[in-house]
C-alpha cells in the first residue's frame, strides 16, 4: 500500500553525496562518518535497488514501521565493514518473532552513519524509509530517541552481526536497560552491529518523529556543495537553511579527551579570531558536542545542535578528528520542539548528560549573540 510511486521520493547518487555531507553536519561531532554508508547506498543503487523515501503525511496511521540503525563504535565500522544484509536480517527476524509485515523503515538517528543504514536496508527489503528520524541530530544512546521519550517501548528488538548471529531482546524493563544490554551484546558481536526495534504505528511515527529529516539533510548537503561551486561561504549557507548562526570562529588551542564509561568525553578550547578576537570558547564533548561556552559562560546547550566545521571547506569535523591548530567555525542550530519538552529534556537536556549545573535555555532562531562573529 505504500509503494505508490507518486508518493515516494527516489534518491539518486547525487542525493546520496549530499546526504553524506548533510548527515555529517547533523551528527554534531558524533554519529560516525557516513562515508562507508554512502558507498553502501551507492552500491545498492548500482545493483538496481531503489532508495525511496516516503513523506510523513503519506504514511497510513495503521502502517507498521520498524526503526533501525547501527550500534557500536564508529571506528570499527571503518575497519570491519558490514556484511551488508544485517539490517535486512533484523527486520525479517523481528517480523517472524512478532508475526507482522513491515510497511516502512524508520531512521533512529539522522546524524552521522546512521542516516544511511535505514536506506540501505529498506532498499534491500523493497520498502520506503520514512522522511523523519528519532533525534534530528546524533545522540550516544538508544533511549535518546523521540520514539523512546514519547512512550514507544523498543523491545522486542533484534540485533544482527556480519556472521549471521541473530539476538532477540525479548523484553527490557526500561529503555535504559535495553541500551545497557544491547551495548554488552554488541561487544561480543565484534563492536559494530545493527539493531531493529519493535514496530511503531504510522500514527505514532507521524506524531513523534522529528519530521523531514532526509529532506533536510540532503538539502543541507546540497547547500554546501552549491556554495562551494559558487565560491560562496558554505557555513553561511548552512546557517541560512537551518535558522542557525555562527557562534564563534577560531583555532583549536587545546583538546582534552578521556574515557568515561566507554564514552569519549572532553573539551575543545578554541581561541577566537575574526570577529571573536580576545575571546575563548569551549565546546564540551561526550561523543557529540554538547555545550558551547564563550569566556566561561554557557551560551548553547544540548539538545540544540552545536557543530564544529572546517572554516574553509564547511566540512563537519567529528570529535575524533579534532586536532590542535584546526581553524574552525562553531555553528549552532535550534533543535526541533519535540526535543524541548520537559520529558525530552529529562533525557536529552544537559542533565541527561550529567551537566547538573547547566539549565537549558533554548536558542532562538533570530537571537543575536554578544560578540558574535556574524
Amino acid at each position, binding site marked *: 500500500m505504500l509503494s505508490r510511486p507518486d508518493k515516494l521520493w527516489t534518491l539518486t547518487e547525487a542525493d546520496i553525496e549530499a546526504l553524506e555531507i548533510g548527515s555529517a553536519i547533523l551528527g554534531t561531532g*558524533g554519529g560516525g562518518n557516513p562515508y*562507508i554508508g554512502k*558507498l*553502501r547506498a551507492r*552500491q545498492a543503487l548500482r545493483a538496481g535497488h531503489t532508495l525511496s523515501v516516503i513523506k510523513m503525511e503519506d504514511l497510513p496511521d495503521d502502517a507498521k514501521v520498524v526503526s533501525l540503525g547501527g550500534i*557500536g*563504535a*564508529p*571506528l*570499527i565500522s*571503518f*575497519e*570491519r*565493514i*558490514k*556484511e*551488508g*544484509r544485517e539490517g535486512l536480517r533484523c527486520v525479517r527476524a523481528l517480523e517472524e518473532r512478532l508475526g507482522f509485515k513491515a510497511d516502512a523503515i524508520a531512521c533512529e538517528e539522522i546524524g552521522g552513519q546512521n542516516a544511511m543504514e535505514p536506506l540501505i536496508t529498506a532498499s534491500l527489503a523493497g520498502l520506503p524509509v520514512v522522511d523523519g528520524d528519532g533525534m534530528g541530530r546524533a545522540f*550516544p544512546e538508544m533511549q535518546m530517541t523521540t520514539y523512546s521519550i514519547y512512550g514507544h517501548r523498543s523491545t522486542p528488538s533484534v540485533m544482527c552481526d*556480519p*556472521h*549471521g548471529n541473530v539476538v532477540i531482546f525479548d523484553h527490557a524493563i526500561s529503555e535504559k536497560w535495553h541500551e545497557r544490554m544491547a*551495548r*554488552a551484546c*554488541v*561487544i561480543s558481536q*565484534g*563492536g559494530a552491529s545493527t539493531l531493529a526495534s519493535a514496530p511503531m504505528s504510522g500514527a505514532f511515527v507521524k506524531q513523534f518523529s522529528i519530521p523531514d529529516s532526509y529532506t533536510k539533510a540532503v538539502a543541507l548537503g546540497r547547500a554546501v556543495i552549491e556554495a562551494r561551486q559558487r565560491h560562496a561561504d558554505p557555513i553561511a549557507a548552512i546557517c541560512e537553511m537551518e535558522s542557525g548562526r555562527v557562534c564563534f570562529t577560531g*583555532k583549536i588551542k587545546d583538546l582534552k*579527551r*578521556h*574515557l568515561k*564509561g*566507554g*564514552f*569519549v568525553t572532553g573539551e575543545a578550547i578554541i*581561541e577566537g*579570531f575574526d570577529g571573536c578576537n580576545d575571546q575563548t570558547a569551549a565546546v564540551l564533548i561526550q*561523543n557529540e558536542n554538547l555545550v558551547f561556552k564563550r569566556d566561561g559562560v554557557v551560551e548553547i546547550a544540548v539538545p540544540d545542535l552545536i557543530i564544529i566545521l572546517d572554516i*574553509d571547506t564547511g*566540512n563537519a569535523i567529528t570529535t*575524533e*578528528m579534532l*586536532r*590542535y*591548530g*584546526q*581553524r574552525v567555525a562553531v555553528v549552532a542550530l535550534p533543535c526541533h520542539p519535540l526535543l524541548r519538552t520537559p520529558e525530552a529534556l529529562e533525557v536529552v537536556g544537559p542533565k541527561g548528560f550529567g551537566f547538573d549545573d547547566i539549565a537549558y535555555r533554548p536558542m532562538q532562531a533570530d537571537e543575536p549573540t554578544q560578540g558574535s562573529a556574524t
Partner: protein
Amino acid sequence: MYRLGIDVGGTNTDAVVMHDREVLAGVKAATTEDVTSGVLEALENVLSKAGVDRAKIANVMIGTTHFTNAVIERKHISPVAAIRLGLPATACLPPMVDWPQDLREAAGDLGYLVRGGYEFDGREIAPLDGEEIDRIADDILAKKISTASISSVFSPINRQMELDARDRLLKKCPDLQVVLSSDIGRIGLLERESAAIMNASLLALSARTVDAFAGALKSTGLHCPFFITQNDGTLMDAAMVKRFPVLTFASGPTNSMRGAAFLTGIKNGIVVDIGGTTTDVGALQLGFPRQAATVVDIGGVRTNFRMPDVFSIGLGGGSLVRRGPDGAVTVGPQSVGYRLTREALVFGGDTLTATDIAVALGEADIGDKSRIASVDADLAQGARVAMTAMLEAAVERSRISPEPLPVIAVGGGSILMPNRLGDLEVLRPDHFAVANAVGAAIAQISGEVDRIYSLENGLTRESCLKQAEEEATEKAIGAGADAATIEVIEREDVPLAYLPGNATRIHVKVVGEMGGGDALPA
C-alpha cells in the same frame, strides 16, 4: 662526511652537495621523460660546482614525485590480484569500490573476497579459507598476473593471517610479488587496502626506477648507498622503495618544508614554496610538516597516509598579470609555467608575468630590465597588492598560533614574496631555490606503531604508550637509524567510543639520524 640530495620533480630536478650542515652547491636541471638523463645532468653539474671528490660522497638521498605522478596520470600501472580476508564481513564493499573507473581498469579490476580476518579484540572473524586462496592462485597463474595485495580486516592488530595467506599463495605462485596491507597502512580497511593495491600496481615501475637511479649514480662514479625520501620526511633504502613505492607519495612538499626548516634553523614556522605555477603553504611543527588530519586523495583514491597539510594557491613566477575591465589587477591562476624563461617580458617574451612585476618593482634582478620599462607603475603596484593579499591569506590559513611565527620563502618563485606579510617576518634563506633537495639530503629514519590496545589486565595507557614507543624505536633502528639520536615526534592516544574495556588507539612515531657515523650534530 659529504652527502648529496636530489629532488626529481615534475618540472625540475634539483641537486645539492652538503658537508655536515653546510650546503656547498646547489643546481637545477630540467626533469626528463626517462628521469635518468635529468638526474645525470644535475649530478654532474652539482659535483663540479661543489668541487668535491665523488669518492667522498657517503650517501645520496633522492626525493621523487615519479610514483605519485604515475598514479595521477594512470601510467606504468600493472594489474594486481587484490585479495581481501574478511568474509563474511565486508562483503558489501569489494576492493577498489570507490576508485575512479580508469584507474581500477589500469590496475586490472581483480578483487577477491575470502573468509578470514580479525575482530577488533583479535578473535578471528573466520579461519583463513586456504582452499579459496589456492583457487585464487590458479586464477593468478591463468591470468598471468605478477603482483598481488593481501588485506585482512584488523591486520594492523594482528597480521598473522596476511602472512599465512601470502605463504599459501607463494606455494603455487613462487614468482608472485605480494604486498601485505599491514606493512603499509593503518586502521581503516578501504584506505589501507587501496594503498596496498596501489603499491602492488607500482612495483614494476619502482623496480625500473630504482635501478635507473642506481645506474645514474654508478655512471657518475658514485658508489655509495642511496636512499629515497618518504612522505613523512624520512628515508627508505633502495630495497625498501622497490617494495613500497607508495610511501614516497607527497615527499615533494615534505622535502621543501624540511629543507626550509634546516636552512633557517627554524622549527616552528610557516613555509611558503613558490614555484612557476603554484605556491604551496604549510606549517612546520618541531621541524616537521604538520600532518593533514583528514584522508588524502591521490589520483582520485582515498588513502590514509600521513601527508603534510599543504594548502596550494595559483600563484607562481609564471602567473599571468592582467587588468580587468573594472580596473582591478589580477595575478594567476593561469601561468606560462615552464615556458617562463621564453615567454616572460624580462626573458624576451610578450607575456606580463608575476616575475616581470618583481623586476619592475626592483624586488628582483633577473633577465633584461629594459624590457619592462613600459609597465606602468600603477599596474605594478596593483599586482603587488594582489600577490601580497594572496600570500597573506594562504599563510594566515596555515598559522597555528597567534604568536608571530616566521615565514620561510623557498622555491624558484620566492622572489615574489615581500619582506613582511602582515605582522610576520619573511626569511629567505641561502639556497632557497633548492630547499627541496636540501630537505632530501637531511632526511631521517623513522619507526611507527599504530594499533588498538585494550587497557585491561594491568595494562595502563602509560605502559601501552611505552610499549609502542619501544617497538617504534626497534623499527627505526632496524631501518638504519642511530639509536643515540632517536626521538619521539608523534605520540597520540585516542580512546575508542562506545567500547567498554577501555580500548584505545595509540599512534607513536620516532625518528633518528641516519646511522653509520654520519649523524648530524643536534
